[in-house]
């Protein structure tokens, strides 16, 4: 982490500057009370007097020294910034320390008392942002993170992108020595830029570079407000080091802190809601497809109301826990096949809900597309994504023509839609709707039995099957108020298929941008929020994901964040294992395995990483490698006892690939 430290030259310069400034200040303090009349007569010059410019250079206080001196004397600007931050009730501040925000760092822990927010020591900016990401999905409250200007924000960038794609607010503040004439030379210059926000501008909702304290207070409250208005998203503020360090200046009025008033989320147009209700009420087989429709637990309840009103099957794409998996209307993605009306809510990819793509090497290698729905199926969309797009990143996916599109927040629109559907259902449709529900109950029971029989396959296999991994874990936590804080779907989605997910905090969705490295830090962030709510946090931790920034394990131990991490250690970047095999097959070649199980460049074996030792070295209780399924249950019992005592625990489990 040398890139965060000033080099020796800079330290020496700053040290000397400090010494000179202190001496100057002492001298000034001593001399100041003496009046001109009491001063002794000047000595006769022994040489020609210096020019005015020369005298000023030799006897005047250089500007940077004046800054230093004034900073010592006045109220630091960064203290006011802490007042602004405190006004918003931000509880934690995960961050990797850096010189470009040393002033606000000092104010936070000394002036601010290191509370609201509490500084959490992170070992990578990506971890800090992902922790904030996971924290929000449990608490509904955004966190602030501080990043070093260029290199720190570059580290943070992937996690910011995940938050953007996952519609999660994170307040990212980057320290920056903007004034090129006065910034320290050397490393601080490498770590500064004219516009550091440009690094993340394509995937943040808004950014600003405040140039005064009043500007800062307005920018910060505005950033918070924008981030927290659906569609949520990360925001960035470039914070000048000089502005942090300088004392507060009175420009005729003391800076004020604007009051935060939440903005009401956008609702669907009344006419469009009515038309959607008419189509749904008249449909023979309506289907509801949701991805991030439920922003809160209340959203889950609203979706249940709508689904039951229509007895419509619900496909939960898994961006959040939108709909209880135990509900008989919970259905697999194939439910779109016979639909005549489909309403999509906050779908990140409507196209893929109603179309298929097969990566089969056909059509010059680009694969084959096909429709999954009848040609006359009516499509309705309620999505706030339409309100928040950028040109460079295409996370809105392929273009899908929709009959009734609404640029609106789904959860905010649901109450009006439910009322409109109630009014639109004709009496003569009610028995048909009820019959639809009875048929759905039968299908649900059949699907459930099929899924459980599929889970029984390879039950006693070693490496341990992913279904066994997931159910052994569930067996040990089922009586707790549990929260699955991360699982990237690499375990064949068994938790979503087998666990009775009903509450909003049972499932948090995935990373958003599929930037690998999200799982471990987001789990720690979510576990932090769950800790404060008295819940038990569990993650299915992938091996490749953990190795991007394993330092977050230390952060969890350091800050006593209880989390059970059950590893899905399949010893490879398995998605890529399959990709290279696929391409080799398309080209009629045998992949070069290089002595590993997967193609060269995709395996994580020889040497096998001892994740349990890695975790132990950072203060976790850990055990492994567990290869025998019979040993998993007892190990889980031990680990859970540790987590219940307030510490994190990790089990390194060797698993089947998927």
């Amino acid at each position: 982490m040398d890139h965060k430290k000033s080099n020796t030259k800079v330290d020496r310069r700053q040290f000397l500057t400090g010494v000179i400034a202190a001496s100057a200040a002492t001298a000034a303090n001593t001399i100041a009370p003496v009046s001109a009349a009491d001063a002794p007569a000047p000595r006769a010059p022994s040489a020609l007097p210096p020019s005015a410019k020369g005298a000023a250079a030799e006897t005047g206080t250089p500007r940077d020294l004046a800054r230093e001196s004034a900073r010592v004397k006045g109220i630091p600007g960064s203290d006011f910034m802490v007042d602004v931050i405190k006004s918003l009730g931000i509880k934690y501040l995960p961050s990797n320390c850096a010189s470009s925000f040393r002033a606000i760092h000092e104010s936070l822990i000394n002036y601010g008392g290191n509370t609201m927010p509490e500084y959490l020591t992170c070992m990578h900016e990506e971890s800090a942002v992902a922790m904030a990401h996971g924290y929000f999905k449990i608490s509904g409250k955004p966190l602030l993170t501080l990043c070093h200007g260029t290199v720190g924000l570059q580290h943070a960038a992937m996690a910011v992108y995940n938050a953007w794609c996952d519609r999660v607010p994170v307040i990212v503040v980057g320290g920056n020595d903007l004034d090129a004439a006065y910034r320290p030379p050397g490393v601080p210059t490498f770590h500064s830029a004219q516009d550091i926000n440009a690094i993340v501008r394509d995937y943040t909702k808004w950014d600003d570079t405040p140039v005064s304290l009043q500007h800062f207070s307005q920018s910060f409250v505005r950033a918070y407000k924008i981030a927290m208005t659906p569609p949520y998203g990360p925001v960035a503020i470039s914070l000048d080091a000089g502005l942090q360090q300088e004392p507060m200046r009175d420009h005729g009025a003391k800076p004020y802190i604007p009051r935060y008033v939440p903005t009401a989320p956008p609702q669907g147009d009344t006419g469009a809601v009515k038309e959607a209700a008419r189509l749904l009420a008249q449909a023979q087989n309506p289907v509801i497809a949701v991805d991030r429709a439920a922003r809160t637990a209340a959203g889950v309840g609203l979706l249940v109301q709508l689904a039951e009103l229509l007895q419509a099957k619900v496909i939960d794409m898994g961006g959040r826990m939108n709909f209880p998996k135990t509900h008989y209307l919970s259905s697999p993605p194939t439910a779109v096949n016979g639909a005549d009306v489909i309403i999509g809510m906050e779908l990140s990819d409507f196209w893929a809900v109603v179309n298929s793509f097969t990566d089969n090497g056909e059509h010059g290698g680009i694969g084959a597309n096909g429709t999954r729905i009848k040609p006359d199926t009516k499509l309705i969309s309620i999505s706030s994504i339409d309100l928040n797009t950028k040109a460079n990143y295409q996370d809105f996916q392929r273009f899908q023509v929709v009959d009734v599109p609404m640029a609106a927040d789904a959860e905010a629109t649901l109450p009006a839609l439910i009322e409109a559907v109630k009014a639109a259902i004709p009496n003569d449709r009610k028995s048909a709707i009820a019959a639809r529900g009875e048929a759905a109950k039968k299908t649900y029971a059949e699907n459930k039995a099929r899924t459980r029989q599929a889970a029984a396959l390879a039950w006693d296999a070693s490496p341990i099957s992913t279904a066994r991994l997931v159910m052994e874990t569930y067996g040990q936590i089922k009586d707790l108020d549990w929260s699955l804080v991360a699982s990237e779907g690499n375990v064949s989605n068994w938790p979503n298929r087998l666990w009775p997910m009903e509450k909003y905090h049972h499932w948090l969705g995935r990373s958003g941008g599929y930037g690998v490295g999200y799982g471990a830090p987001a789990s720690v962030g979510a576990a932090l929020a769950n800790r404060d709510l008295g819940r038990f946090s569990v993650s299915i931790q992938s091996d490749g994901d953990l190795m991007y920034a394993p330092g977050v394990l230390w952060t969890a131990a350091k800050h006593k964040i209880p989390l059970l991490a059950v590893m899905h250690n399949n010893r490879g970047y398995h998605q890529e294992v399959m990709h290279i095999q696929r391409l080799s097959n398309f080209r009629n070649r045998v992949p070069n395995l290089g002595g590993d199980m997967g193609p060269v460049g995709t395996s994580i074996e020889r040497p096998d990483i001892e994740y349990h030792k890695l975790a132990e070295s950072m203060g976790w209780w850990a055990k492994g490698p567990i290869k025998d399924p019979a040993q998993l249950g007892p190990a889980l019992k031990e680990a859970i006892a540790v987590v219940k005592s307030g510490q994190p625990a990790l089990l390194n489990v060797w698993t089947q690939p998927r």
Partner: protein
Amino acid sequence: MKMFKLRFFVSTAFAAVALLSIEVMAVDAANGKAGYVKHGCWQCHGFVGQGGIAGPKLAPEPMPLAAMNVFLRNTKGAMPPYMEAVLSNDDLADIHAYLLSIPKAADYKSIPLLNLP
């Protein structure tokens, strides 16, 4: 589309005829297990053919060898093709023998963890 269908039919027919002899070949399930790993079948279908999100189950009760051969050489779906130059008929027969040797899974109703509410 017609051309494609005709081509598929012809290649399928040839493959089926060729495989009449494979059915009676000596097969080695142990070799098949090694081949199953070497040729990457485990990647999508798991080490004991249980399947998962990336590929359907292959065992127990795999499809007949002849059908598997035809499918592997001609697939246009999510499964990438395995041509004979990559996976010989002999190796495929061994792999099929390995899949046949995998015992049937227990009824989920006999596994307490799969009966939790």
